[in-house]
């Protein structure tokens, strides 16, 4: 158990550094789409929701999981779609 926790911490810290490095160079133009795109990624909690909803028989856990699946899917689908809608508009137009 403790080994799992430690590995998790290592992964967390390294991924945070990767995040800082990757995102630091984003130009201000893209900050809003970036925020909403990152937001969609945070919907990854859907994986956890799926895992706890998994069991066949109904109990409190599966009900909680079921609600979590709905909420996380809203986050994921809505987040990615709205980001795409924004980015669609970012086209280089010919100067008139």
């Amino acid at each position, binding site marked *: 158990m403790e080994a799992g*926790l430690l590995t998790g911490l290592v992964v967390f810290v390294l991924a945070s550094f990767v*995040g800082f490095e990757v995102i630091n160079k984003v130009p201000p133009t893209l900050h809003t789409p970036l*925020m909403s795109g990152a937001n969609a990624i945070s919907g990854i*909690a859907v*994986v956890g*929701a799926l895992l706890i909803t998994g069991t066949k028989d109904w109990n*409190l856990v599966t009900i909680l999981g079921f609600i979590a699946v709905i909420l996380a*899917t809203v986050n*994921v689908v809505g987040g990615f779609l709205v980001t795409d809608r924004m980015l669609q508009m970012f086209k280089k137009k010919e100067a008139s």
Partner: protein
Amino acid sequence: MNTYLNTGIELAYLIAAALFILGLKKLGSPATARKGNFLAAVGMLIAIVATLLNQSVLNYEWILVGMIAGSLIGAIAAKKVAMTDMPQMVGIFNGVGGAASALVAVGEFWRVLTTTGTVPLDATFIAILGVLIGGVTLTGSLLAFAKLQGLVTGSPVTFPFQQPFNFLLLASFLTGSVYLLIKPDPAVFLTLTAISLLFGALFVLPIGGGDMPVVVSLLNSFSGLAAGAVGFILYNNMLIVAGALVGASGLILTQIMCKAMNRPLTNVLFGAFGGDSVAVGGSGGTEIDKTYRSIDSEEGAMMLGYARSVVIVPGYGMAVAQAQHGVRELASQLEKMGVDVKYAIHPVAGRMPGHMNVLLAEANVSYDRLYDMDDINTEFDRVDVALVIGANDVVNPAARNDNASPIYGMPILDVDKANRAIVIKRSMRTGFAGVDNELFYKDKTTMLFGSAQDIVSQLVSEVKQL
């Protein structure tokens, strides 16, 4: 067979995590951003499909129902939302994401407790963390949404004994946590959950509506951390990676916004702006001659039409008035007459970082016409006319030269260095910071009073007649 499958699932998670990083990286350049978003979405799809292959996941019917319901709600919301309402949208998505994470934390704690009768120390600790972060994200985001949407008053809300009450709450949360670590008791766990939800609301309540974008950005970071906590709970590295990425990005954006307003994060969160600090600025400022010159749109059109170069400074006022399409029309009209038109974008123009860029992109303004503050500020002394539309504090020279002003030190657009400035504004009222703007009283500044949309469309037709 089983081990092969599990290895396959783990590898799929690895691919998903890699796609998230790649996607975020590509989101960093306008040319590849759309592809980046798509890659991240593909990563998400891979992660979900891989999870469904897990042998312990059997409840397919209900999962399908839940995912379809969620997809429909999400898709409709994403399609319907107006671009001006983007901060609210991100806010509410943060909230549901945080809620999902908190629910998973509660559910997993419950499952372990009911199946084994006890919960290991580290699992309890992480569950508390997950519930805390997720709960705060949920109620904090909902309140931020309500404030941005105008459902709840935008001004900071305080009540008597707020500090002692918060402190008491924090103390009881810590006590409860320690108790839970020693003895996993469902009742205590539920109490902690309730306190977490209360924390989120209390955290956002005393922050003014104008600072909500910073809060949304910070909560975005939290929603990532909440997902990361779920990763710890389930020993899933991919969740941890995704959570850490989002946590880092939210933190960076929060910092950018705070820097652009020249206020430390602690001041945004804990110092109710517009209170005592403004009183100091009002009395300490240098006395200026408060006469201003106002013109009509015909005169304004002449100044613009015969200029060589015009810089447009859009503010949130323009976005609220939905004047961005008119502004674009005005700009292309001027360009036809040989005027060099640029847009100057302050980092906190709009309601979240980069919001103004999105709004202008929606109105078909090419992104290479938009100039960041640092790039355009060196050019202002060579600009004939600066056209300020619905912006106030971000062009206030007091931020540069009046150290008694509450906005002193905030980086601003040096509109006062341009040869002429035209300010489109509803009235002489002060901006969000509640400070007077000496730019408006300068000799070279002229005011054009009215709603941004009306004035801009008048300008367009007047310019056409030149």
